[in-house]
């Protein structure tokens, strides 16, 4: 098992391998590019999701999400080699702060969970579209 400080960043080998919805100007790669000013947008209808694959199996203690207008979010993890067999590990309602970037720390539910892949399912939102600026994780 590997240890890393910021395991979800592209620099640490993590990649977004799948995202629903598509605007080439705001692709899902923006979630992982380490730039706080770029973001991924959903392009209509819910649910929407993206999957982040890590460079190996990691023990996760904290996940931080910077997003706007997300309401119901479910996070699932998988320890398979391929991004399959996901199991839900937490479901959360983000409190609405109009037009502010909501910074969400998911600590207790995630503490000590192992994952090779993380799947973020946005079930509902406060508007037709949401943005995700970044996702990072700590081990």
């Amino acid at each position, binding site marked *: 098992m590997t240890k890393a400080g910021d395991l979800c960043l592209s620099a640490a080998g993590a990649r977004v391998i799948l995202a629903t*919805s*598509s*605007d*080439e*100007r*705001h692709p899902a790669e923006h979630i992982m590019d380490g730039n*706080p*000013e770029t*973001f991924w*947008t959903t*392009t*209509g*209808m*819910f649910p929407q999701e993206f999957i982040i694959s890590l460079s190996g199996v990691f023990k996760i203690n904290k996940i931080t999400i910077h997003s*706007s207008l997300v*309401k119901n979010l479910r996070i699932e993890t998988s320890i398979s080699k391929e991004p399959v067999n996901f199991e839900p590990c937490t479901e959360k309602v983000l409190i609405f702060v109009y*037009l*502010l*970037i909501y910074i969400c720390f998911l600590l207790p539910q995630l503490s000590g969970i192992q994952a090779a892949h993380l799947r973020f399912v946005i079930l*509902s*939102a*406060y*508007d*037709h*579209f949401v*943005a995700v*600026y970044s996702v990072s994780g700590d081990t």
Partner: protein
Amino acid sequence: MGKLTAKCIVAGDSSVGKSTLVQLFSSNGSHFLKNYSMTTGIDVVMKTVQIPDTGDSIELFLCDSPGKAVFSDMTEMQWDQPGCFCLVFDVTNEASFSSCTKWLQKVRSKTSSAQLPAVLVGNKTDLSDRRAVDKLEAQEWAVRHGLVYFETSAKDLENYELPFQSLAKSFYHMYQERVENFKSLV
């Protein structure tokens, strides 16, 4: 290049021509439903609309809903989180126009966003001798409730694509505005 998707609720009283308009629009004007067949559940029809001069497009998922009240409990559950709304009445049927307030309330109650692009469509303008709803009256009602008004005749292939194109454009502009907002947050 971007591709948006929008769930478009098509609702209104029974036999006003919702299914006819949806079929006509999705078949590019080649398929007019001459014989009435009652819609009993939500029929979803996907139609891609290009946004002029942009290279962007929108997939409209047209949710053709039954007008008959017996089916409403089942179908209205599926209206969750609508992206836009096409409200249809029959210009020869006064009651179908009166029902519009009810339909609008129902659909608006399903959205959690501040804006829901919506159009009001007065259909069957070819039956001009039986007209029962005044154009101005319908227009005023639409403006008062924040909808854009169109008159169509599915039978004469008149204006049938305009309401949907208008919705697609509104939805697209809403997206652009929202993206500008997202940019300004950082």
